[in-house]
């Protein structure tokens, strides 16, 4: 694609420093060939400690029972499914960047897509944990798969939870495959850089599947990437659509809404891009990738956040309008209760984080101020977590029969489990930046000449 290196005053170089091919390889792959620095070790220590804490919390909960959570007869889901939806959402940005931006031939994606995809996979892992541990009898989790068994029992294909099982596992598999395929050429480079007979060499040559860079293979390779992107793009939309159907297909006021699929997908991209920013702002600093992950990238993602943020805001408003317009007393009550009831604090946290905070990014000053962007990206993620909490808890805690209305407060165990999922996420990501090429070297090489005179 290097043919497209049109020189124009309107275009900014995607790689802000004039680098030769060899230098690119060295810049990126050199990072993971040398010894890791202190910061990395400290970060890993912290995140794995948090992961361990979460693990212990879950172990205790599985040993003792779901009663160790704050749920009750009225509120059967709270932190568990909130975290699930939150993490699935996070995942979406990765696929969006790698697949949809590829289809749209957005060159700037090349230096961020690898990390974004990695994030997707780790986020989906975190998400997957929750449907598993939220079961009353997790040791029977395999029952949700339709496999022939002696009892001649099958699963219920009408249940959105079952759709989730298929959606999430498909999403994970396809993302993982796409990610790996993308890494094959870089594994080959690593292989050829490693000295003969070293274990590194063996591992990388196995991972590289004896890739040689033959242009006949490159040809198929590019077609394959397009196909996978073409499949992943509708997949990512379907996944969050199906997740939203957990709620949309129910009868509970506040859940039973047709707006959910688009609303959830927008929210997912919104939170996903925020998380990508959070991660990359750190990564580019720690790994000195400033020239590859440039302000241009950060600004581009900020713009996506503004857009999706406004979509989410629109969804909130539409919900209220529909509730009022439908004239359904239960629907009306639920939404009034969200804004004014006992969980109003959660609702307004959500609104200020998701609807108001993104608009700061209209200002270039803020958009280009890494600290500001970093903080805003975290604010957005907090907001999106609360969005799911609000949807799940405020709808359940006051539904049809006032006699059953109740309140929910999380227990220590639940909070530790939530933190634990972050521990898992960051531990995985730290291992990733150490042992796998964080930036797609082959693709970046195709764009280093972009908007640059020879």
């Amino acid at each position, binding site marked *: 694609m290097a043919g497209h290196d049109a020189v124009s005053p309107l275009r900014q170089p995607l790689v802000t420093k004039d680098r030769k091919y060899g230098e690119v390889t060295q810049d990126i792959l050199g990072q993971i060939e040398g010894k890791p620095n202190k910061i990395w070790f400290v970060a890993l220590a912290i995140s794995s400690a948090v992961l361990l804490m979460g693990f212990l919390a879950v172990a205790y909960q599985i040993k003792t029972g779901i009663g160790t959570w704050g*749920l009750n007869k009225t509120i059967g889901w709270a932190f568990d499914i909130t975290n699930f939806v939150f993490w699935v959402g996070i995942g979406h940005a990765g696929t969006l960047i790698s697949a949809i931006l590829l289809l749209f031939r957005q060159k700037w994606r090349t230096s961020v897509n690898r990390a974004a995809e990695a994030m997707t996979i780790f986020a989906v892992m975190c998400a997957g944990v929750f449907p598993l541990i939220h079961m009353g009898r997790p040791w029977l989790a395999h029952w949700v798969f339709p496999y022939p068994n002696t009892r001649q029992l099958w699963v219920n294909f*009408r249940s959105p939870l079952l759709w989730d099982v298929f959606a999430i596992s498909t999403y994970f598999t396809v993302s993982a495959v796409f990610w790996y395929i993308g890494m094959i050429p870089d594994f080959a480079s690593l292989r050829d850089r490693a000295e003969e007979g070293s274990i590194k060499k063996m591992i990388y040559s196995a991972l590289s599947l004896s890739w040689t860079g033959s242009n006949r293979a490159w040809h198929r390779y590019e077609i394959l990437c397009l196909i996978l992107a073409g499949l992943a793009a509708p997949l990512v939309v379907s996944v969050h659509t199906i997740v939203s159907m957990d709620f949309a297909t129910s009868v509970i006021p506040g859940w039973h809404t047709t707006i959910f699929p688009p609303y959830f997908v927008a929210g997912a991209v919104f939170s996903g891009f925020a998380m990508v920013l959070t991660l990359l702002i750190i990564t580019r600093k720690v790994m000195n990738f400033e020239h590859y992950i440039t302000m241009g990238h950060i600004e581009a993602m900020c713009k996506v956040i503004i857009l999706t943020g406004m979509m989410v805001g629109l969804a909130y408003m539409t919900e209220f309008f529909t509730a009022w317009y439908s004239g359904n007393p239960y629907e009306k009550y639920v939404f009034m209760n969200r804004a004014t009831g006992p969980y109003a604090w959660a609702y307004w946290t959500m609104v200020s984080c998701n609807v108001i905070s993104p608009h700061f990014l209209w200002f270039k000053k803020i958009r280009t101020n890494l600290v500001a962007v970093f903080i805003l990206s975290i604010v957005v993620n907090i907001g999106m977590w609360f969005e799911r909490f609000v949807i799940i808890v405020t709808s359940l805690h006051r539904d*049809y029969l006032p006699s059953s209305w109740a309140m929910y407060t999380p227990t220590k165990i639940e909070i530790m489990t939530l933190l634990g999922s972050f521990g898992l996420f960051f531990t995985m990501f730290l291992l990733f930046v150490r042992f796998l090429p964080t930036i797609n070297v082959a693709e970046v090489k195709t764009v280093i000449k972009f908007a640059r005179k020879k």
Partner: protein
Amino acid sequence: MKNPTEIKKAGQTPTYWKDVEDKFPDPASFKGEFADGELDRYYGTNNSRRDFLKLMGFSFATVPLASSCIRIPVKKALPYLEKSDQVVPGVANWYATAMDPSLGSALLVKTREGRPIKIEGNNSSPITLGGTSAYDQSSVLSLYDSSRFKGPMLDGHAKDWNSIDADLKQKLMAAVEAGKEIALITATQSSPSTLALIEEFKKYYKTTSHTVYEPHSDSAVIAANQVTFGKAVSNRYDLSNANLVVSVNSDFLGAGCGAVEMTKQYSKRKDPDAKKGAFKHIQLETLMTLSGANADVRFTISPAEEKGVLLNILGALQRETKNFYTPTGESLPSEGREAGIKIAEELLQNRGKSLLLSGSHSTSLQVIVNAINNLLGNYGKTLHVYDNPYFKGADDKSFVELVERMDSGKVGAVILWDCNPAYNYSESENFKGALAKVATRVFIGMTPDETSELTTHILPELHYLESWNDYFVAPNTVLYAQAVVRPIFDARQGQDSLLSLMGRSDFSAYLQANMDKNFYKLQSKYATTSGLWDHSIHDGTLQVNLNTKSLSDMDKNQVAHHFAMAKRASASNGFTLLTYQKSHIRQGRMINNPWLLELPDPITKATWMNYLMINPAVARAMGLKTGDVVSLSDGKFSAEVPVLSQPGVHKETVALAVGFGRSVAGKAAKGRGVNAYPTMRYMAGTFQNNKDGFSLTKTGKSVVIPQTQTHHSMEGRDLIRETTLEEYSSNPKAGNEEHAHLISMWGGHEKTGHQWAMAIDLNKCTGCSGCIVSCSAENNVPVVGPEEVANRREMHWIRLDRYYKGDENNPEVSFQPVMCQHCDNAPCETVCPVMATAQSSDGLNQQVYNRCVGTRYCANNCPYKVRRFNWFDYPHDDKYENMVLNPDVVVRSRGVMEKCSMCVHRIQEGKLQAKKDGIDLPDGAIKLACQQSCPADAIVFGDMNDPDSKVSKLLKGPRNYRILEELNVQPRVNYLTKIRNKDESYGRS
């Protein structure tokens, strides 16, 4: 296993060997039971193997007969060598028995493999007509109370019966010779045999006195009847002939004794289509009671107004009827005058068809009430005072005098039988002091309590299901109680204890002899005495024509005096504290019963504790909210207790339930709540239940009162549809006009064969909550404890939603039983990923426990929130309590969803029975647990495909509706509109 001692271990049932001895006290009676010489071997030690087997055969045959209660570990289980003709494994045996009518009713007991597991109403009782209360239902669990005495004790040491009897006989005789009084203190006695026995005891031990002690009772009514009729008996009411019931602080549907009987009559009378014409219930009360919640017209009155209203009614009636009991021109109190006069008018319009009830503990007021009913000519029609020879009711005065005598050392021995004054006598300290001065202190009771602590001789009492007894319930009905299970612990029925103190034994024989003596002549149904015995025990009831006439000519001369007494205005200051009985805890005799403790109070929906009920406005003014702990004090008494802001409580009054705050009791009851008895006071011959001069001060502390419902408004949703009798008579569809127009994208499934449905009459349901216990007992619903209830995790499969409407000082209350609605288009089913819940061909929403993985999605998606999740492994580790489990219903494990199954096992049983009998299942043959126990007959269950079934008729009726119809989930549980006989002319004071 060669010698008997090991044999005993084998079954782990040393008791059943003892049973054999009990059953056949002297070897002679073995004749015919054994081959010759076998006995000697049995009693001898050198047994051969074959003897062992024979004996084993015999004993295992007698195990079911004796229905030994100790579970035999599976690894040691042995087959019946000789199958008993009485026990078919897997098939329940039913026995008729009765609980003391002052507490309970005529009952049927379901036993499985010898274990009583369920209490149901005895339809053959003309009194309770098959109804039961939550109290009756729960009593079976107390049978297995592991805190019960395991054996007799002398001065705190375990002793065998013979030696303790010997010691006691000698001590009692010594007391007689010393001319010292032997005080026998019992609860209310309505048992002919027991009373006769006590008379014999008095003769045997000359100096014996018998005192009936009840801490919180209708003794004022009894005293008043003594005054006006010369008979110390209590009233019997008959609502079936009443058109107007005016109740002044009487919770006749709730805590009042005979509530089941009253509820039966009440709900029949409230039927809007009843031939007998309109029925109105006016309730004037100081706190919100179950009766007040059901009233058509309700007033919230202060204790002063209570007095005022009654006096004014009497005054007005005297003026109207020109029939003066009190000096003419006697001034009348201003409080409650208006209401009094208006009510008096209405009463007059219903002469002989009205009834005035009062819950007052003041004899004078009860005399006034008698006078009023007499002026209205209600005696003999809606109200009966029988000349009942078999009744000894509470006599507070005599108890107080007894304590004085004990204190002055005149009493040589005291026998406390089924009473606990050290806990529930207001002057318990005086009592303890006086008791200490009595040399021989005998305790006859089931469980350790504050009083047993202070006694020398403890003679463990049997549970009523282990005992024999008879109860005379005027008019002319005798209830018989039989032992349906062998004693679980080494205990002895109190009557047997008295007998053995007279050197005799076997009360059941005594009972039979007594029956022959007293009642054989009074009946013509049975020719032989044995026939009489067999049938009476079998039926549990016996009709005799003992001409107990209903007295109607009262002694009017006393009224004036009591009128003056009552009028004496007592200047009230501070809060008046009203001590009341919770409708299912009552006086607290059975407080150590997890089912009762976890049962939500019908009004407050609170469990496991008592609390200070306070008017919401007052609470707000004092900056108190439910759960805030205040210190309640009148100088003499003081306690820290959480408040519960309760609509319908009078502003000047706070109320505290009795029965809680036990310092010595089983683990369920110990230390729960505060003891309210010390706030009662003895005055004018009775224990008064209200005292003024109390102050509340905030402590800043706060607790969570475990309530099963915390939101009390229906938020204007038409969950409970209601109308007034007036509108109903013109338009039967009134209040039920709107029905959703429903369309579905699905074709639906065929509905052939039986299609089960239920109709619940909201007009009949009084909210008594008996169904909840019945359901829990039937379906092994776990008890989760106060903390988990506070976490909103109670497991009850059926709940009673209670909503308030209108003025918080005097709200309109409505109840709605809600269990799984068994929707045809069940939202819970669609969302279960593993198909653990699905629709049965006969329309039940089935939960498959062992397929459930516990996603809780179904519970979330249930619009009625009736699904219950096993958050933990709820303990089933009490080897005694586990014996109450129903073997027909599986005990659910942790992480599994559960809910009302519509007693599917009962449905199957009914269908099988019909099949065996080769008939079509008759309508009403299947009764669900909740339905069976309902004293109001509010629940109807049946096949809606059968056009003639009661339920399908109701479903077609104008009052029928379904909750949240518009969701088109097509519930199988239907409701009938509530119809209030409102009278706006009263306003809602």
